[in-house]
């Protein structure tokens, strides 16, 4: 278009010069010839008529251009509308647009497919007729209680994944919906809702949940049998045993308890990773919690003649945390310290305040973590080479679980270690504590 401009102007100017020359010659010639006007007036008149003609020609030309622009604009708008229509029908999720009376104004292809309606049939119909809503128990939800009503009245965005739609053929399917108001110049003129058939997602969730549950049942059952039979034997209910037999039985019992811990550890990781964990924060004294954990480890500590030092900040406040989760962190760090510190070594637990965080430190004078292993030490099932050689038993889950718990609580965990000198682990928890979360399962 830009290259044509000079050419247009050239033709326009050339045309005008020609017309003006013609008019001037005609008017001046006639006027002068007939002696009606003086030469000067004739010249002025001819110039003015030329000017008028030029304006007229320009106007016509401009009108044509405007007309062409309008035509182009119309095509562009139509193209834009077509693009929008194609995009809307290509969206994999159902889209519905409702007017202020909750009647269907638009239904995309995915919505039509899910609900079994043709778009032309659905347009203008009450949304409650096109997509009846049911709760999880199978009760129909009255249209006065539907999200669309609230969205229209309150102008808010509502999301729900607990209800079901009933399609035209009567099939009920679980649906995830988000309904938002359509606001034009501050006024709600309708509702736009996006929805998705989540029947499969729900089935997968249920299957996963059921799998974890069944797996826990299967793994724990033989462990319970070992636990209860060793208990029956150890209690002398079925006859007295020699001290050595009793000692061996205690070994079986404690090994079994460790196995139960391993199963619980695996389950806990699965629960945290799946986001199904319940976080139930309650005011907790971390000092008391740590001392309880150390108490549980007293047998191992005294057996190895380890020195255990606990130092607590004098003004340590109670924290709003899920004590079971935090206990897991201390337990894993302390168990490692006990396991990987040679007899006669020292373990120190220190809890202090630092800014808006509580800082816990667990240090030992143990074997230390080789530099090559340090990067991977928080990985699931990873155990440092020297740890595997010195203490063959171990799951490689403890530090991973500790990290998962600390980080999901808004804290940080890190360490420093030197082979032959020992390791120090630090972790922080925000003074504000943990955020409560309703879930399905608890840590065990």
């Amino acid at each position: 278009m830009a290259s044509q401009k000079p050419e247009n102007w050239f033709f326009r100017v050339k045309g005008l010069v020609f017309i003006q020359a013609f008019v001037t010659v005609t008017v001046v010639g006639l006027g002068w010839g007939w002696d009606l006007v003086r030469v000067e007036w004739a010249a002025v008149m001819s110039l003015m008529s030329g000017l008028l003609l030029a304006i007229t020609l320009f106007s016509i030309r401009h009108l044509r251009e405007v007309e062409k622009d309008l035509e182009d604009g119309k095509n562009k708008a139509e193209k834009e509308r077509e693009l929008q229509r194609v995009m809307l029908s290509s969206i994999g999720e159902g889209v519905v647009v409702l007017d202020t009376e909750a009647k269907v104004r638009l239904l995309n292809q995915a919505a039509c497919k899910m609900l079994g309606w043709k778009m032309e049939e659905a347009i203008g119909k009450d949304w409650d007729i096109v997509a009846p809503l049911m709760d999880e128990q199978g009760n129909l939800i009255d249209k006065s209680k539907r999200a669309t009503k609230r969205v229209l009245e309150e102008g808010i965005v509502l999301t729900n994944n607990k209800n079901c739609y009933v399609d035209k053929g009567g099939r009920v399917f679980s649906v995830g919906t988000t309904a938002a108001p359509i606001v034009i110049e501050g006024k709600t003129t309708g509702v736009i809702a996006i929805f998705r058939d989540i029947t499969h997602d729900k089935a997968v969730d249920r299957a996963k949940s059921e799998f974890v549950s069944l797996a826990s049942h299967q793994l724990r059952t033989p462990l319970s049998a070992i636990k209860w039979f060793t208990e029956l034997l150890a209690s002398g209910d079925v006859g007295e045993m020699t001290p050595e037999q009793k000692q061996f039985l205690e070994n079986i019992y404690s090994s079994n308890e460790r196995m139960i811990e391993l199963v619980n550890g695996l389950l806990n990781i699965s629960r945290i990773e799946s986001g199904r964990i319940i976080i139930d924060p309650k005011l907790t004294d971390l000092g008391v919690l740590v001392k309880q954990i150390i108490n549980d480890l007293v047998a191992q500590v005294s057996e190895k003649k380890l020195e255990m030092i606990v130092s607590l900040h004098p003004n340590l406040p109670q924290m709003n945390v899920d004590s079971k989760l935090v206990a897991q962190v201390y337990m894993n760090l302390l168990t490692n310290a006990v396991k990987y510190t040679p007899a006669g070594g020292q373990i120190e637990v220190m809890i202090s305040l630092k800014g808006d965080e509580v800082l816990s430190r667990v240090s030992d004078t143990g074997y230390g973590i080789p530099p090559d292993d340090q990067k991977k030490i928080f990985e699931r099932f990873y155990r440092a080479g020297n740890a595997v050689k010195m203490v063959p038993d171990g799951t490689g889950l403890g530090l991973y679980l500790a990290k998962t718990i600390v980080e999901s609580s808004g804290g940080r965990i890190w360490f420093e270690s030197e082979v032959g000198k020992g390791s120090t682990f630090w972790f922080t928890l925000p003074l504000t504590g943990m955020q409560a979360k309703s879930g399905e399962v608890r840590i065990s």
Partner: protein
Amino acid sequence: MNKKYLIMVVEDEKLLLQAIIKKLELTGFVAEGYGDGDLALERLKKKDNLPDLIWLDYYLGDLTGDVFLKRMKEILEKNVWIPVMVVSNSASPQKVEETLKNGAEKYLLKADYKLEDLVGIAKEMTGQKKQNDT
């Protein structure tokens, strides 16, 4: 314990059933063991000498604890109820809530308890029943 209370144990794991029965008998209970939920329900249908307590596993192979409770409700006469302690290795809060709603009095996780502690709970529950009867 003067009267010997009867405890019905419904547990599909033979070894666990054996350990529970042994411990209950050693403690002075009369214990009837069932490795199958349907068999236990058939026994309840006879309605004579009903147990004082039912020790129930949740996953029974053929049925689950809450189904057992529902069917037990259908079998027993309206004014008869037997206290139930569910002892399972699977205890999601949802399952516990549902089972308690269906009439179980306790839901306990096997791996968390020593056998002695569980038998202690059974003692308490039958003791409570005794008080209610008088």
